[in-house]
């Protein structure tokens, strides 16, 4: 069983990539607050969630994506998710996230 969600941040001048890993569930709300803190960027900056190392997300995890998207919108950031695989891809597909999220694959 893989561990609770973790994340790492890769910075570039005009973009920030957040690599989420592990299992993202209801229990990860506190960690996710730290993820959201990285959204403190100037307008126009690009924020990308790289989900390629995320093994699982439950429906609470989807709620965190929605909060991230909302935060980006309020701060005029360009927000995208990419790299979802297996279970994570399945869940964001059945929730039809492509209609609301910029999915950069």
């Amino acid at each position, binding site marked *: *069983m893989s561990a609770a969600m973790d994340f790492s941040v890769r910075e570039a001048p005009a973009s920030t990539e957040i690599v989420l890993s592990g299992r993202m569930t*209801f229990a990860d709300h506190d960690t996710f607050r730290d993820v959201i803190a990285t959204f403190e960027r100037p307008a126009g900056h690009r924020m990308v969630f790289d989900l390629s190392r995320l093994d*699982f997300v*439950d*429906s*609470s995890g*989807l*709620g*965190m994506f*929605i*909060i991230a998207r*909302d935060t980006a919108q309020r701060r005029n950031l360009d927000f995208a998710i990419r790299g979802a695989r297996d*279970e994570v891809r399945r*869940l964001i*597909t*059945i*929730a*039809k996230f492509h*209609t*609301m999220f910029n999915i950069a694959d």
Partner: protein
Amino acid sequence: MGHARAMTAAPGTDGGDTPTRPPPRTGAGASVYGMELGIPLDGCRVLIADDSAFNRRTLTRFLQWAGITQVAFAASAEEVMERLESFAPDLLLLDAAMPRMDGIGVCRSLRGDPRWRDLPILMQSALHSDQMRTVCFSAGATDLIAKPINPGECIARVRYHLERRSMVRELRAFHKRVERDLRQARAMQLALVPEEAELAALAERNGLAVDSVFRASDEIGGDFWTAFEFDGTRVGIFAADLSGHGIAAAINAFRLHTLLTRTPPEEMRDPAGLLRQLNGRLCEILPLGQFATAFYGVIDRADDTLLYAAAASPSPLLATSFGFQPLDASGPLLGAFGESAYTNRRVPLRRGDALFLYSDGLSEARDAGGAMLGEDGLLRLAERAAADAPDRPLPALMARHAAIHGERLTDDVTALWITLR
């Protein structure tokens, strides 16, 4: 042992029989020993068990300086038991060794009685060896003070244990109240889903057989489902799972249930339309990041079809003579985005066919090794249950599920097996 002589007289006293010149008090804090920290102690009751009158008086004086005025005394083991019952102290100051009573024995027997298991027992002992201390602690003493007793230390320890007891009591009372409230809330949540006899009657009238399981992981949770009949030939089945766990999810489940019960029957015929409407209303009331996954299907016995729409619910399984087939239940989360569009899908549902609906609590269960069952795994479990117990596959499925994943799951579970007769 010279217990009485081992006791140090407090400064400012003559060590005589009457506590003279008590420190001036404008409240407990007036004395240097009446530290004004934490809770006031004037409501606390302390029982002093000591066969020396001198020690009893001295300890009483120390307690008075801490603001403790409700003090009772015992000079023998029998008296300790009697006073415990009649005085109901918050703390027992117990001499470890007395000629007519063995403090260690008293302590041990009190700890064996559930009524006194939590009582702080502060033991005073003139023997300071590690061995003696170990004996006191293993007899159940909460703490020790060594004779000769220093008033500052004595008061600080008494205060610490009384405060701790008071906090534990508050926590227990709070826990009890929350437990009771959750029990009531749980009963209310169970009342959201159709009552068994009612459901059986509905099933009978519409030529259906319905088996259901509804279980919250904690006292309450965010799952709910309901079934209702309308237009003479149609049965609506609504199942939703509100995001999150516990009280917040349960309150959102009640909100969704209320919205559903206020929907006029003519709007129940169009599943996609119903979800669109519910989505709009939920978007207004749910906080950001909270939503429901949902399935709404209308079984029409006039033409034996299932018309359904879904909001990212786990894929329901359709069981026909050709085997099990997952239905596409994709769709935008209910209550997450204002302008979501939902799609109606229609499948034939003939006599003998069955529809198996479940919440993700069932498919996302993990076995002892941490492996998740998954929807594919659940499909195989359903096939096996249908083969083993064709008349009532759901109980067989749940039993097999429990054997692998345990009875206590980390998420709420809803499971519905609806067969057309």
